[in-house]
């Protein structure tokens, strides 16, 4: 057996070992602890990365096709400054601002649409139609309209998160049981009171669903938009430029940045969700 094949076999053994370890952690007495809940996915990820390293080396995959994790890590450290600059440009300026504007606008719009039956009936189908629209396609148009800097990226993000948020919020506002609504009616509660005391709390699981979907969309939108014109910084810019320069290690370092940012963003929203919708059955068991 060649040296390369040995590495590949070793990778498979590592996989089995990692899985076995996780199985013990997950079913063992420690499974409920926080440490185990973090350790299991981390071990899973580490085995995947180790396998990647071994297989890339074992099969001698060219670095311009798929670089090894070790090379990516080295670039990540060496280029930390550039990566940070790209992160600020794409995530903070583009994605985050677009996310906030888009979600707030959708929320306000949902409340407005919800106010009158007529509007809701009109807007929901149109909103659903637009939500199914492959919004990435609007990126070239929005870049044309809003220029190449972060404003157009934010605009793409706004458009991308708007409809999922709108549809979720409207659906959430309607998700109350007959009895819960009847109770409010017996109190002679007004529209606003019913909204604040019943429908908004009841809508929270849906709203957070929309927010969570939007976090991943926001990042994708901001990056995609950079492919259609950008200043010379930003995650999307760097990725496309580095692919052209065959600097695949840099490409993957940027992907790591995006994944880290996205995961933290998602995690933050999920943590908030847990605090706000603690009462929902899916958070209780």
């Amino acid at each position, binding site marked *: 057996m060649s040296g390369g094949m040995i590495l590949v076999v070793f990778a498979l053994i590592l996989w089995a070992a990692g899985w076995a370890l996780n199985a013990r952690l997950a079913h063992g007495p420690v499974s409920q602890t926080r440490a185990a809940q973090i350790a299991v996915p981390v071990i899973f990820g580490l085995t995947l990365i180790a396998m990647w390293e071994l297989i890339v080396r074992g099969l001698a995959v*060219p*670095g*311009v*096709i798929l670089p090894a994790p070790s090379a990516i890590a080295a670039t990540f450290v060496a280029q930390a400054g550039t990566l940070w600059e790209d992160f600020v440009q794409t995530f903070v300026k583009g994605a985050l601002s677009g996310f906030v504007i888009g979600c707030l606008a959708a929320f306000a719009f949902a409340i407005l649409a919800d106010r009158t039956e007529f509007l809701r009936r009109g807007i929901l189908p149109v909103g659903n139609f637009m939500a199914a629209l492959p919004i990435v396609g609007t990126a*070239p148009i929005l*870049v*044309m309209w809003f*220029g*190449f800097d972060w404003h157009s990226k934010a605009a793409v993000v706004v458009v991308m998160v708007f409809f999922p948020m709108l549809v979720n919020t409207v659906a959430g506002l309607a998700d109350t049981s007959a009895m819960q609504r009847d109770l409010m009616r017996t109190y002679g509660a007004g529209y606003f009171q019913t909204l604040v005391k019943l429908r908004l709390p009841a809508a929270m699981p849906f709203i957070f669903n929309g927010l969570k979907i939007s976090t991943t969309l926001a990042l994708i939108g901001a990056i995609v938009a*950079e*492919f*259609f*014109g*950008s*200043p*010379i910084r930003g995650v999307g*810019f760097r990725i*496309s*430029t580095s*692919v*052209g*320069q*065959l*600097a695949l290690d840099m490409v993957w370092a940027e992907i790591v940045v995006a994944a880290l940012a996205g995961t933290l963003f998602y995690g933050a929203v999920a943590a908030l969700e847990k605090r706000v919708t603690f009462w929902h059955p899916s958070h209780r068991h």
Partner: protein
Amino acid sequence: QDMDEVTLQLKWVTQAQFAGYYVAEEQGFYEEENLDVEIKPGGPDIAPEQVIAGGGADVIVTWMAAALAARERGVPLVNIAQPFATGGLQLTCLKETGVETPEDFPGRTLGVWFFGNEYPFYAWMAQLGVGTDGADEDGVTVLKQAFNVDPLLQGQADCISTMTYNEYGQVLDAGYTADDLVNFNYLEEGVGMLEDGLYVLEEDLEDPEFSDKMVRFVRASMKGWKWAEENPEEAAQIVVDNDMTGAQTLEHQTYMMGEVAKLTAGSDGALDPEDYQQTVDTLLSAISEENPAITEEPGEGAWTHDITDQALN
């Protein structure tokens, strides 16, 4: 009898820039050489160097700067033919913005193509001593220009990159006349770099069978180019027929064919070593963070006349 298969990866979408290959295919020049050629169109995010490294193509069309950069990064590309004798890359500025000479650049916003096409631009800026981080008065703001000429038309940039055979025509189409525009041709500015050439992997060339295939391929392709130069209208029609997106217009492709013919006119397919050396020197004169194309002489083997010598006999 079985024909030899060849896969060609283009640098960009189907257009008259690659007319020679489509003509050779349609006119049966490849078939005459007993070749079955598959032409794969490229696109904005397809790096031909990466495709060939992954084994997805036998031969690619790319620019020399990108090929040399790939070579330094471990993809040993060899230039086997150079159908484009000169280059069509230029920087096009609007006179009304007040840019007439390179001295007017500082403080301006310039549109540049990246994805391996940025090397000539950075070499030029290095030569002019103009900063590219846009921070100070003496520098320029660089914007990554996408696929079209919008930044110029919409006033987001003072100058943009164009190819003589394509984007420049689009600017003219948009209603500007040649008098409204100033063109800086990279070749004339002394930072020209060789454009579309044919490249293969070094180790493939060691295989005599493969070499032989390439000889026939280059011969047929050059025949196609010459045919295209002589019959620009028919060539444009062939290109349009091969466009699967249905987006190309005959009018624009005819224009493009006319301009491209000017670039291929001086070439019989053989690489001029002086042009090669100029490209290398320019690249080496401007090594920087932004411009990491190559850091040392590519050395022997970055190009060869073996194929063209045999093909032209």
